[in-house]
């Protein structure tokens, strides 16, 4: 009613040279808004599908066969309920005497921890073996078919629900059988590599950004450098792998293998294919990104803040150190988070630098051979056995959790700095 009045009141105004088109303009706006919403929904769906496919593989039913039926050892097959003495008895009753003697020489059975005994019974007596794995979707939605399939194909097998990510998976090293394999070495390798990456790329990146943004003259030469740092940020990561191979693994081998520092070279022969080389290669990779982000952060510091420093007689360095850096630091940190997140997931350059394909020992120093989570994922996915795909999915989950927690830590740190900046 009111709208009608408004139209009646305004429609008669003007000289007619403005045609009524508001309805059309608003409709165009609504169409665009719908397109934007559709794009967002598409992105969320794709992300959801990604997470769903990972979770689908990381959990699910597993058909397992055994050499000794656990039901003969404990009522209901639940060996957790057995006492320590009963576990020892189970071992003594089922193992060959030579094996028992070997174990006894290592450490007498009676003195062993309960967890140790349980693991021995599982590994040496029952000897679980995965014969078939099922995805989470199959396990939840098609339980009847799974049961029928297992009953027909593997009548001996026991069907259990398994989370491929579990405490044992996190604490075990690489193994030839998927059910025994874990990500500990890869996790430690990833953490050490990233630590070296951050420790080198962060200070060098910030220092370079300070020089370029605050000190360098705006001449041809420096503009050339700036443009090329932007170009470097777009170079495919495998090229950085080639660079790392040439510089760190080959040319600087005495340094990266630790020989130059008198560190005992890895007896298995790392030859410069070490965590140090990997970390430095990733540092090269993220350096341009960190520099660019830091430069933009410094550029965003208002000129008035710098001038207020200069106006009381501060030198350039004092202005940079006391005012520009603190004001830009939260943005610098954000840029570094983005860059490091990319580095954590890098695989190609590390393959080139020489990640180990099968590493059963944890790295002991930066001069050790290395493997990382993405490398492990890549190798497990490439295997034909189904159960290796399951542990690959589990490793992806571990990698995602690691990445998200590092990001969360950095974001919390940044927000603290930001709050401090506002109310200092």
């Amino acid at each position, binding site marked *: 009613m009111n709208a009608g009045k408004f139209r009646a009141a305004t429609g008669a105004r003007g000289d007619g040279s403005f045609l009524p088109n508001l309805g059309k303009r608003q409709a165009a706006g609504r169409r665009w808004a719908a397109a934007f919403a559709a794009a967002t929904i598409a992105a969320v769906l794709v992300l959801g599908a990604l997470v769903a496919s990972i979770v689908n593989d990381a959990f699910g039913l597993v058909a397992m066969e055994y050499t000794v039926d656990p039901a003969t050892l404990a009522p209901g097959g639940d060996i957790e309920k057995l006492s320590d003495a009963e576990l020892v008895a189970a071992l003594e009753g089922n193992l060959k005497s030579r094996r028992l003697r070997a174990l006894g020489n290592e450490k007498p059975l009676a003195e062993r921890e309960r967890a140790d005994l349980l693991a021995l019974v599982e590994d040496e007596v029952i000897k679980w073996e995965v014969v078939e794995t099922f995805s989470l979707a199959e396990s939840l939605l098609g339980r009847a078919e799974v049961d029928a399939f297992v009953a027909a194909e593997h009548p001996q097998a026991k069907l259990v629900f398994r989370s491929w990510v579990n405490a044992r998976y996190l604490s075990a090293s690489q193994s030839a059988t998927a059910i025994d394999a874990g990500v500990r070495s890869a996790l430690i390798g990833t953490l050490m590599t990233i630590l070296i990456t951050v420790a080198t790329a962060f200070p060098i990146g910030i220092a370079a950004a300070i020089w370029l943004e605050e000190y360098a003259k*705006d001449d041809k030469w420096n503009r050339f450098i700036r443009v090329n740092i932007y170009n470097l940020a777009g170079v495919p990561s495998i090229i950085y792998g080639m660079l790392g191979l040439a510089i760190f693994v080959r040319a600087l081998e005495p340094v990266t293998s630790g020989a130059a520092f008198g560190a005992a070279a890895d007896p298995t022969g790392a030859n410069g294919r070490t965590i140090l080389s990997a970390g430095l290669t990733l540092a090269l990779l993220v350096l341009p990104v960190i520099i660019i982000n830091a430069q933009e952060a410094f550029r965003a510091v*208002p*000129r*008035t*803040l*710098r*001038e*207020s*420093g*200069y*106006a*009381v*007689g*501060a*030198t350039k360095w*004092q202005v940079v150190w*006391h*005012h520009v850096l*603190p*004001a830009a630091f939260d943005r610098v940190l954000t840029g570094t988070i983005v860059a490091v997140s990319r580095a954590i997931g890098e695989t190609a350059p590390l393959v080139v630098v020489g990640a180990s394909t099968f590493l059963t020992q944890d790295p002991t120093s930066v001069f050790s051979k290395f493997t990382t989570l993405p490398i492990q994922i890549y190798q497990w996915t490439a295997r034909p056995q189904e159960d290796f795909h399951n542990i690959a999915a589990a490793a992806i989950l571990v990698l995602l959790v690691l990445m998200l927690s590092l990001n969360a830590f950095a974001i919390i740190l940044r927000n603290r700095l930001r709050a401090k*900046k*506002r*109310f*200092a």
Partner: protein
Amino acid sequence: MKRDSATDPFDLAVETGETPWALETRGMSVDYGAFRAVKDLTMGFEKRRVTAIIGPSGCGKSTALRAFNRMNDLIPGCRTEGQVLFHGADVYAPEVDPVKVRRWIGMVFQKPNPFPKSVRENILWGARINGYSGDEEELVEGSLRQAALWDEVKDKLDKSALALSGGQQQRLCIARAVAVKPEILLMDEPTSALDPISTSRIEDLLEELKSRYTIIIVTHNMQQAGRVSDRTAFMLLGDLVEYAPTKELFLNPKDGRTENYISGRFG
């Protein structure tokens, strides 16, 4: 007054120099690339007086002011020719460090720009970096009193300066500038971002400050120039058109362009 070096030629000139003017420019021109913003400016500023520079937007008044303490050095592509004499020493002489110039010739900007630190740190930072060795509490109180801010902030010295009102922030910037005990204060439209009450407080403050400092204020507000200044310079398109005692300039302008401007015919 003790200087920090007895051999620096600039320090020596400042030490012994007693010139009729607190600051003097001789043929000073400022270029932004190919554009000449200030043309051949020759003028002197009286000691312990307020000198106002007025003119329409883009007349080069702020550029000239920023040239006096070499603030323009920070702007890429900005070049200054001619001389700016402080106690007879040219601040643009090649051996003079602009940092030293700014320490003697302080500046207050158009928009209040306190450091994102506490009120106390705002005062002390400049003093500390310049090697202040006296009592810090005394300096904080003295500087804030000079800026007529002490009574308002004495209970929140450790609170963020950004929590103060705009007018208080601007007076804090004045306190910060006087804390390093400069001789000249340059003010670049210091009240244009403030409400009328804050503006009048700062205008009152200038009256007190001029007993200690030589003040050069750029303003586009002619009434303000009339109220606070002893001498006024009128600039137009980079040229100094007229420079005279304020009363004379406003009541009896010699140049037709000055008369047009102050009577509101353009600008």
